[in-house]
């Protein structure tokens, strides 16, 4: 039988507020246990939550970016369950009337086409604390620093049909929240994580199959692996004639498998009801307009602009706008390179990305700044150095040896364009290679093109790469053919 997969994602992204969603405690990552857990975060008797307006505004910003409706009223509700990292015995979340209702985004598929994925809703809620199972013997340690950190939970429609689409969707949402600067999107620190709802059904069937929920996946790679594993598992189960159990499963990246998780509350009954400590939030149209007017350029618009004004290929533009930081780097580089776009794009997507990947570094931490790279590209443009020498210059810049001009100067990498100097080198090479000259001259013209490479290489070697390759070529042709 042919099977079709149906995937929906719930993405939890931490909002980059200074203070928590319902208290004035700091949200900074990595503090000593419980030093950022104030009376409200601890759920001490008698304390009350007060909503952080920045969290509301960030959520609205996201809503506007996905062209969603922002309802006039939004309500916070309590989701009741007992868990040690949930201090009050309930999580303040949203149930009816979330802050962001239906929206959508476009994702790019591998064949270059694009697909619209619906966003059902996005709601605000507070994060839980952390349970630490190691280091306390037979006990678990509870750190509530993270408790109360604002989260935006973004719930998609079940619109994705394979793991690659799910990853593309997750990457797109990631890029949007980063563009909007409402989240640092740091996946290692858990600022951006997702639950995937996966089901399969016979192709052509309308109803969805029974789904499982894969919990707390915090990397793009794991999302793809987890979903693919789960699809295969479900198909195996169904093809054996068994049924899928609706349950929560955990992905184990070490074993690359998903396994059934003992549910948090065996009888999952969260008893949602409007939080009586919090009044409804009224969203004024003027606030929406204000936020809209300050919305930054988003990835899709930026990509379009890069294609149109910089004449970039679709692929290059996609890559360069995938992260706001890369796009910013590119634009600064083009500026410093005197408007040279193609070379800037090539260097960033090529050499720079390779080096960053090798060192597992973010572009914002690159030792070669956009300005440095741009100035170097300028030197390629004005023939001060060749593309080949530029690689040397780039490596030197990467290793902190200074900017392009000083490296070119100090290492004497300036290209030789003096014809008489090149002519001398050409003459020497021809004189020292009688066999090759003979072979060249006896070959038909269509093969000569290849053979000339040998001479070019020799000349470049003699010049230590500094001779202008174009001039070398011309001179060699001229002399060998005469």
């Amino acid at each position, binding site marked *: 039988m042919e099977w079709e997969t149906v995937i929906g994602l719930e993405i939890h992204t931490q909002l980059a507020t200074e203070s928590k969603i319902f208290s004035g405690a700091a949200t900074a990552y990595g503090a000593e246990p419980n030093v950022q857990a104030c*009376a409200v975060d601890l759920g*001490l*008797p*008698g304390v*009350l939550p*007060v909503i952080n307006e920045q969290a509301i505004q960030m959520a609205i910003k996201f809503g506007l970016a996905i062209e969603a409706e922002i309802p006039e009223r939004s309500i916070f509700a309590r989701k009741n369950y007992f868990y040690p990292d949930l201090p009050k015995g*309930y999580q303040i979340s949203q149930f009816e009337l979330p802050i962001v209702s239906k929206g959508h985004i476009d994702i790019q598929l591998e064949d270059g086409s694009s697909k619209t994925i619906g966003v059902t809703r996005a709601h605000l809620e507070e994060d839980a604390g952390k349970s630490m199972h190691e280091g306390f013997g037979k006990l678990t340690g509870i750190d509530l620093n993270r408790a109360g950190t604002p989260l935006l939970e973004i719930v998609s429609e079940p619109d994705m049909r394979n793991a690659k689409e799910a990853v593309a969707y997750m990457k797109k949402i990631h890029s949007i929240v980063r563009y909007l600067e409402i989240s640092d999107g740091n996946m290692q620190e858990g600022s951006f994580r997702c639950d995937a709802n996966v089901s399969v059904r016979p192709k052509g069937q309308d109803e969805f199959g029974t789904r499982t929920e894969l919990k707390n996946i915090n990397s793009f790679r794991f999302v793809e692996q987890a979903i693919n594993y789960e699809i295969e598992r479900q198909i195996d189960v169904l093809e054996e004639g068994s049924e899928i159990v609706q349950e929560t499963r955990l992905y184990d990246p070490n074993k690359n498998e998903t396994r059934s998780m003992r549910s948090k509350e065996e009888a999952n*009954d969260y008893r949602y009801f409007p939080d009586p400590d919090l*009044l409804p939030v009224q969203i004024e149209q003027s606030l929406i307009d204000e936020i809209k007017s300050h919305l930054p350029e988003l990835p899709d618009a930026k990509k379009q602009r890069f294609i149109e004004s910089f004449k970039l290929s679709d692929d290059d533009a996609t890559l360069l706008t995938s992260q706001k930081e890369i796009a910013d780097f590119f634009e600064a580089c083009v500026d410093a390179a005197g408007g040279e776009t193609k070379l800037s794009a090539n260097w960033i997507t090529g050499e720079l990305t390779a080096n960053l990947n090798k060192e597992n570094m973010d572009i914002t931490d690159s030792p070669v700044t956009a300005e440095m790279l741009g100035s170097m590209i300028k030197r390629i443009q004005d023939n001060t150095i060749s593309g080949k020498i530029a690689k040397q210059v780039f490596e030197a810049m990467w290793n902190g040896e200074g900017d392009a001009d000083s490296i070119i100067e100090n290492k004497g990498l300036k290209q030789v364009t003096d014809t008489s100097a090149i002519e001398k080198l050409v003459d020497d090479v021809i004189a020292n290679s009688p066999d090759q000259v003979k072979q060249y001259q006896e070959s038909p013209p269509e093969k000569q093109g290849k053979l000339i490479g040998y001479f070019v290489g020799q000349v470049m070697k003699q010049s230590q790469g500094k001779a202008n390759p174009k001039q070398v070529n011309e001179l060699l042709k001229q002399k060998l053919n005469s």
Partner: protein
Amino acid sequence: MHQSTLTQLSTALKEKKVSSEELTQLYLDRCKNFNEALNCFITINEDVALENARTADKKIAEGKNTDLTGIPFAHKDIFCTNGIKTSCGSKMLDNFIAPYDATVVEKMNDAGMVMLGKTNMDEFAMGSSNETSFYGPVKNPWDSDHVPGGSSGGSASAVAARLCPAATGTDTGGSIRQPASLCGITGLKPTYGRVSRYGMIAFASSLDQGGPMTQTAEDAALIMNVIAGFDKRDSTSAEHPVDDYTFRLNDSIEGLKIGLPKEYFGEGLDSNIAKIIEDGIKELEKLGASCKEIELPNTDLSIPAYYVVAPAECSSNLSRFDGVRFGYRCEEPKDLPDLYCRSRGEGFGKEVKRRIMIGTYVLSAGYYDAYYLKAQQIRHLIRDDFQNAFKDVDVIAGPTATGTAFKLNEKLNDPVSMYLSDIYTVSVNLAGLPAISVPAGFIENLPVGMQLIGNYFEESRLLNIAHQYQQVTDWHKQVPKEYK
């Protein structure tokens, strides 16, 4: 001296006829002497009180005092007091030393008032008799075989016995007004949101409201001047401007229109109580008020709706008591569920567990619409009833409680009958209105209170009417003879 009102004590302090230290010592001695008989205090803070009294005396000497600087009083043990045990009448919090001050506590401290101690109460404010307290029942100073009412029974009993000139209470379904009525004192439940709930341990967040329990309406006004107002830490507190509550006390009530709900005077009301309330209303008429029968047709539904909304909110509010970060933790839990179930099962008393279970049930899957949502709809109807009534009348008058103080243990094992006795008070909480109970007579030496209900933020008017009433009556001046 101990029979003085706040107003009289304030004058005596200002005129330096007595020092705060002397006054505080006098009340502390009374507290210590009589607490064994009445059990109205859970904690008496002698050292802290005397230290604060000396500070107050210094302020008075320097002329940096407010009207209430140096005046002793007591807090219901539901208000968090930094460094002082805050038990909420529960074993769950028997070891809880609050690490911060409630807003009400902070405000009264800032005014220079001197807290003598923390008063006994029904566990987590759930009860109408003060018998659900982990610390044992409070006795009614008018007759120690009788309950003082609840849940602010300790505060009511202490003020009635003049162990302190005033106290704070909280009112979720009548917990200020009913014990005030049963103990013969004045109790004001302000408009929902008028007094900050921050640091007041929550029972039912959309109903809870703190307020003063005093001998007179004038005293209640003085305390309201300290505790009322918006609090940025309580987002349900109202930004409505705050009155000077003493300003209108002496206004004439000539022309006042009083509504008498026919549902409050029908069958079910003890005829002796009815007589007392009618007499009280006659006094108001003598002062120039006129009366009119009104209808509050959904009154009967207020108890059922209340016993859905309050338990629902309480079941969630009390989830934080889990034995992890504060409060009672069971011995040697074998695993996590055991820690939760036994800490909570052993830490909470029976009535609290009953209400948590009811609340859990009405919110659970499949029942939410039939119970919780329905109750919130009825709440809307009840609010509308009052708003319709206030189109025709300025205030509503009636009894506070269905009877006088009942005997200890009389209703303890019959929760439903206990709940039904809240009939005249709970609808006010569901609608969020202000109401006051003032002493209006006695039946067999047990006090009876009259309730006045006002429209939103009309505390000044209620205090004005109550004060005018107290100018022509002396029920509020009666003190049980052992405590004179």
